[in-house]
């Protein structure tokens, strides 16, 4: 492994961690992003500052790996991103999870969708199942057409919208 692969792997995993709903629910931040409350901790401060940076960094690194990467890792990474089905599905889930509301001021009744832990378990199970199927296919060298990743991203959006919506919206 070269330095690029190590760097992209670390940023990638941290960024997925920072984007995961459970992490956001756990480490709450102040309404005023740069002015911490008394209860804020160093960890909260780090998450608040690092989350947008990591989000940008992972998109930039993915772009580099997907377009210009010519190292052995970048080629494998590119194949993995498309063949594993995890990336398109998870990014679709993220979009559906965040931006699902049907109109301005629409509120989600959390009792209709279960508690956060139940949502997290269902979501984790589905995502893990997709990842396992994709990884096994990838390991066996199964060639997956491009449109399958498109279909997976759209399924992810619908899944995130209907099954794993955010708990509360402003209204």
């Amino acid at each position, binding site marked *: 492994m070269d330095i690029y692969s190590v760097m992209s*792997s670390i940023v*990638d*995993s941290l960024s*997925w*961690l*920072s984007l995961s*709903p*459970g*992490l*956001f*629910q*756990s*480490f*709450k*931040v*102040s*309404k005023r992003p740069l002015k911490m409350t008394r*209860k804020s901790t160093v960890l909260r401060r780090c*998450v608040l500052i690092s*989350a947008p940076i990591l989000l940008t960094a992972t*998109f930039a690194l993915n772009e580099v790996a*997907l377009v210009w990467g010519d190292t052995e890792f970048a080629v*494998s990474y*590119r*194949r*993995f991103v*498309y*063949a*594993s089905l995890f*990336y*398109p599905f998870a*990014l*679709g889930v993220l*979009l559906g999870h*965040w*931006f*699902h*509301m049907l*109109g*301005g*001021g629409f509120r989600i009744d959390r009792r209709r969708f279960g508690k*956060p*832990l139940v*949502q*997290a378990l269902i*979501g984790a199970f589905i*995502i*893990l199942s997709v*990842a396992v199927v994709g*990884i096994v296919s*990838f*390991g066996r060298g199964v060639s997956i057409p*491009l*449109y399958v*990743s*498109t279909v997976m*991203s759209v399924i992810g959006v619908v899944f995130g*919208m209907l099954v794993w919506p*955010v708990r*509360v919206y402003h209204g």
Partner: protein
Amino acid sequence: MDIVAIFAASLIGLVVVSDIVLAAVSSWRDRRPSAPQEAITWSQLIRESYGITTFFAWAISVWVGRWFSPIEAPLMEWYVGFPIVVALTLVVVLAAFFLWRRYRRPIIPPIVIVSLGLASGWIFIPLCPVL
């Protein structure tokens, strides 16, 4: 299965397990009377910003559409596609902003912006990777 696949699978597993643990911790923390009700999360900041700007929903969905486009060969040159996407971004963001100033609430449903962003990424700036 090569070492890269095993490494990536480990990362995914780590994320999923961490998510479950953190959601469980979160449920416990939220039930405490001393839980700070006024605090919000970073993802809530993104979502609440939707009332003012559609930029995050639009930009992320365009990027996802670009990466996972079903089109196997670009329909146009990059110097045509990218300006079109930039122009669309300006239109979408400014239109949503002026609607917010007029009505003081989100008018365009986010899922519409996400759908349009995905379609724009697919059509105008598809990645078309060589696998």
